[in-house]
C-alpha cells in the first residue's frame, strides 16, 4: 500500500529531485547481487540451471527503499534490481563454463595425460571483458527489441508488477499475491517430491505416454508453473514455440524413426543389462518391455541430441540474424539517436536519455583490449592468436547476445548453454585446440551473453516504469564485473574444498555440475573433430527463411522449439493458449489488468521458492561439513 506522508514529507518531495540513480539503490543492488550470486551459483552447480534474481531484488528493494527508508521511488527500485540481476547473471555465465576446466584437468591428470594450467588472472580479466562487452554491444538494439518488436520479457513484466504493486490498486496487488501463493505452494510440493510416482511424474515432469505413446514422441510436460506463466504473458506471439515443438517431436521424430534415420539398436553394457534384469525381477516387468522402453528412450535422446538440438541452434542463429536485417531501418534510426545523444551530451543540455555512441565505441574498445589481454596471458596462446580471437570473440558475443536476448524476450528462456557450446567450439578451432584459452574466452562470452539478455530485460522493465535508459545502462556497465569475480572465486574455493584440495565438485560429489559435464563432452567431441557443422549451416539457412517471414520472431521461436526439450515448449504453449482463450472470451483489457498480475505472481512465486531452496541447500551442506 502507498506510504502515509505528512506535510513535511510532501514539501520535501516537491523541491527534491526525483530519486532514481541514488547511493542507496546502488549499495542495496550490489549487496543483494553478491548474496544472490553466491546462492544461485551454488544451486547451478548442484542442479544445472540458474534462477533469475530480478524479482527477488525488486521485492527486497520495495521493502527496504519504500518500506524502511520511506522515500524510495519506483525508478530507484528499478536501478536496484538492474544492478542486482546484472551481478547475479554474470555469475551464472561463469558457473556454466569454468567447472568444465577443473573437471577436465582432473580427468586428464587421472589418466596420466598432461593437465591444464588453470590461472585465475586471465579468467578474471575475461570475466570483466565479458561483463563490459555484453552490456555495451546490446545497447544499440534497445529501440528494436523493446520499442519496435515489443518483446514481452515475461520476467521484466513480473518485476514491473512487483515494483508497481501497492500503487496500481488493491485488485492487482491481490491477483499478484494469489499468483505468488499458488506458485510457492506448488513448487514446494514439487521440490518435496510429493507428486513423484515412477513412470508418471519424475523430476517435476508429467509423463503422459502411459506405455502406449512411444517415448521418442516425448509425451511429457513440465509441471513448473513458470513456463506456463511466461506463455500466459506472451499470448499469440509465443505460439510458434508450441507449433515448432509439435513439428519437431510429432512430425520429424516419427518420420525419422519410420525412415530408419535413427539407429535400429543401441549397444548395452553388461552392467546396464544386469541392472535391467534386477529391475525386471523387482518390479515383475517382462524384460521385453524394459528393452523396448530403453530403445525408445535412447532413440529420443538420439533424436534430441544429434538431430533436433544442433539443427535448432542453427535455426536460432539464422533467425536472429535475419530478424536484425529485416529491422535494419529501425536499427539505423536507433544508431542515429545514439549519435544524437553524443552531440546532446557534448552541449551539456542534460537531456541525454541513451548512452552516447562515442562512449559505447570507447567501452567496446576497452572490452576488446581486455579480452585480448586475457587470451594473451593464457599459456600456449600467441599474441597473433590472442588478437584474432579477441576480435572474433567480440563479434560472436554480439551475435550470441542478440540471440539470447531475443529468446529471453519472447519466452523468458535463455539458451545460454547452447551458445556456450558454440562459443567454446569456435574458440578451440581458432586456438588450435588450446582448451585453457578456449575456456577463458568461453567464460567471457558466457558472462557477456547473459549480460545482454539481462540488460534488455531490465530496459523493458524501465520502459514500463518510465525510467531513463541511460541510468540503467550506466549501472549495468559499471557493476556486473563484481558477479564474475565473485563466481570465479567461489568456483576455485569449492574445487579446493574437496579431499586433498581438489575435486570439490563434479560427478560423484554433492555438486555434480551438470553443465560443466556437458561442456566436457563437447570439448571431447571438438577434439575428435565431431562437430555437427552440417546441422548448424542447414539450420541457419532455415532460420534465415523463417526470420524473413512477416511474423515477428518466427525464426528464433522455431529454433528454440527444436533446441528445448519438448516438455518445456509444451508447458509454455499451454500458457499461450490460456492467454488466447481468455482474450477471446474476456477481451484484451482482462488480460492486461487481470491475467498479467496473476501470471507475474506465478513467476515471482517460483523465483522466491528457488531462493529459499538455494539457501536451504547451502545450510544443509554447511551443517554436513561440521564434524560431529
Amino acid at each position: 500500500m502507498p506510504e502515509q506522508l505528512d506535510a513535511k514529507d510532501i514539501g520535501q518531495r516537491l523541491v527534491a529531485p526525483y530519486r532514481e540513480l541514488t547511493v542507496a539503490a546502488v549499495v542495496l543492488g550490489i549487496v543483494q547481487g553478491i548474496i544472490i550470486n553466491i546462492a544461485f551459483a551454488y544451486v547451478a552447480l548442484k542442479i544445472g540451471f540458474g534462477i533469475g534474481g530480478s524479482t527477488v531484488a525488486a521485492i527486497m528493494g520495495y521493502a527496504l527503499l519504500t518500506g524502511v527508508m520511506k522515500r524510495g521511488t519506483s525508478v530507484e527500485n528499478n536501478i536496484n534490481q538492474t544492478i542486482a540481476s546484472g551481478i547475479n547473471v554474470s555469475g551464472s555465465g561463469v558457473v556454466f563454463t569454468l567447472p568444465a576446466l577443473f573437471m577436465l584437468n582432473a580427468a586428464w591428470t587421472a589418466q596420466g595425460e598432461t593437465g591444464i594450467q588453470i590461472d585465475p588472472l586471465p579468467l578474471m580479466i575475461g570475466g570483466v571483458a565479458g561483463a563490459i562487452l555484453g552490456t555495451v554491444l546490446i545497447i544499440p538494439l534497445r529501440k528494436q527489441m523493446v520499442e519496435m518488436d515489443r518483446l514481452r520479457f515475461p520476467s521484466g513484466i513480473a518485476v514491473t508488477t512487483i515494483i508497481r504493486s501497492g500503487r496500481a490498486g488493491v485488485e492487482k496487488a491481490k491477483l499478484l499475491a494469489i499468483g505468488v501463493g499458488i506458485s510457492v505452494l506448488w513448487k514446494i510440493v514439487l521440490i518435496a517430491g510429493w507428486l513423484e510416482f515412477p513412470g508418471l511424474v519424475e523430476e517435476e515432469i508429467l509423463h503422459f505416454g502411459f506405455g502406449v505413446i512411444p517415448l521418442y514422441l516425448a509425451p511429457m510436460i513440465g509441471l513448473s508453473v513458470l513456463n506456463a506463466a511466461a506463455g500466459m504473458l506472451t499470448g499469440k506471439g509465443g505460439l510458434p514455440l508450441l507449433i515448432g515443438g509439435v513439428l519437431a517431436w510429432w512430425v520429424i521424430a516419427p518420420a525419422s524413426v519410420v525412415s530408419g534415420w535413427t539407429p535400429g539398436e543401441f549397444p548395452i553394457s553388461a552392467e546396464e543389462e544386469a541392472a535391467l534384469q534386477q529391475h525386471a525381477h523387482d518390479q515383475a516387468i517382462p524384460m521385453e518391455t524394459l528393452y523396448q522402453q530403453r530403445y525408445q528412450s535412447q532413440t529420443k535422446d538420439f533424436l534430441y541430441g544429434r538431430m533436433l538440438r544442433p539443427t535448432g541452434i542453427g535455426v536460432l542463429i539464422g533467425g536472429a540474424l535475419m530478424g536484425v536485417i529485416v529491422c535494419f531501418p529501425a536499427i539505423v534510426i536507433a544508431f542515429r539517436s545514439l549519435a544524437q545523444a553524443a552531440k546532446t551530451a557534448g552541449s551539456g543540455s542534460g537531456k541525454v536519455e541513451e548512452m552516447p555512441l562515442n562512449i559505447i565505441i570507447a567501452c567496446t574498445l576497452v572490452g576488446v583490449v581486455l579480452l585480448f589481454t586475457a587470451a594473451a596471458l593464457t599459456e600456449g596462446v600467441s599474441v597473433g592468436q590472442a588478437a584474432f580471437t579477441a576480435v572474433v570473440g567480440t563479434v560472436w558475443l554480439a551475435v550470441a547476445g542478440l540471440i539470447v536476448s531475443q529468446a529471453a524476450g519472447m519466452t523468458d528462456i535463455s539458451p545460454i548453454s547452447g551458445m556456450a557450446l558454440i562459443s567454446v567450439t569456435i574458440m578451440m578451432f581458432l586456438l588450435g585446440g588450446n582448451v585453457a584459452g578456449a575456456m577463458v574466452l568461453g567464460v567471457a562470452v558466457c558472462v557477456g551473453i547473459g549480460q545482454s539478455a539481462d540488460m534488455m530485460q531490465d530496459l523493458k522493465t524501465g520502459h514500463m516504469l518510465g525510467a531513463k535508459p541511460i541510468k540503467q545502462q550506466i549501472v549495468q556497465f559499471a557493476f556486473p564485473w563484481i558477479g564474475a569475480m565473485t563466481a570465479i572465486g567461489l568456483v576455485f574455493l569449492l574445487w579446493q574444498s574437496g579431499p586433498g584440495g581438489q575435486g570439490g565438485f563434479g560427478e560423484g560429489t554433492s555438486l555434480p555440475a551438470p553443465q560443466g559435464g556437458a561442456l566436457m563432452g563437447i570439448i571431447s567431441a571438438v577434439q575428435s573433430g565431431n562437430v555437427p557443422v552440417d546441422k548448424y549451416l542447414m539450420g541457419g539457412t532455415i532460420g534465415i527463411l523463417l526470420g524473413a517471414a512477416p511474423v515477428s520472431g518466427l525464426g528464433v521461436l522455431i529454433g528454440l522449439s527444436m533446441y528445448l526439450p519438448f516438455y518445456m515448449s509444451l508447458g509454455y504453449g499451454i500458457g499461450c493458449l490460456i492467454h488466447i482463450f481468455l482474450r477471446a472470451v474476456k477481451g484484451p483489457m482482462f488480460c492486461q489488468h487481470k491475467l498479467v498480475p496473476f501470471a507475474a505472481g506465478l513467476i515471482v512465486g517460483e523465483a522466491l521458492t528457488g531462493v529459499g531452496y538455494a539457501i536451504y541447500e547451502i545450510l544443509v551442506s554447511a551443517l554436513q561439513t561440521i564434524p560431529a
Partner: protein
Amino acid sequence: MKRERTGFAIYAIGIVLAIVGAAKLPAPDHQWPDSWPMFAGGALVAALGLMWWRSGVKAEAKQGQLGGRSAQELLSLLVQSRDMGQAIEAEFEELDSQTIRARIDALLDATLLPFVEDRQVLVETYGMRQGADIILKASAAERNFNRVWSAAADDHLPESRTSLQSALATMEELVAAIRPLMNT
C-alpha cells in the same frame, strides 16, 4: 487474402521439408546427409512461398484489408492520445496523484496500447523506414507517460508534470510528422 494464404501454405510446406531434410545425420566419413536434395528443394519452395506471402500481405495492407485497425485508424489513435494528454496537462494543477494515474491508464488503454497491438500495419503500409519512425516516436512518448504514472504514484508531482510535458512534446512532433499521411 487468397494470395497471402496460398503463399503461407507453400512456405510452410517448404519449411517442413527443409527441416526434415536437414535433420538426417550424414553417413560416416561424409560431411552432408544424403537427404540434402530434400533440404535444398524445401528451402527453395519456402523462399518462393515467402515472396508470395509477403507480396500478399503488402497488397492487403495497401487495401486496408489486414486484420485489426487500418493505418488511418492507427494514426488517429496517436492524435487522440495527444489530445487526451493535453487535457490532463490543462487540468494538472487540480488533479491528485490517484486521478493522474487513472487518467494516464485511461489514455494508454484507449490509444497507445491498441496502437502498439496493430503497429505492424504501419510497417506494411508505409514501409519499414517511415513505419519504424512513427512507432519509435510513439514508444518514446509512451515511456514518458509511464514516467508520469510512476512519479505520481511516488507523490512527486513536479517530476510527473515535467514528464507529461516531455511526452506531449514528442506527441506534437509525431502528430506533425503524420499529418501529411492522414489525408492520403
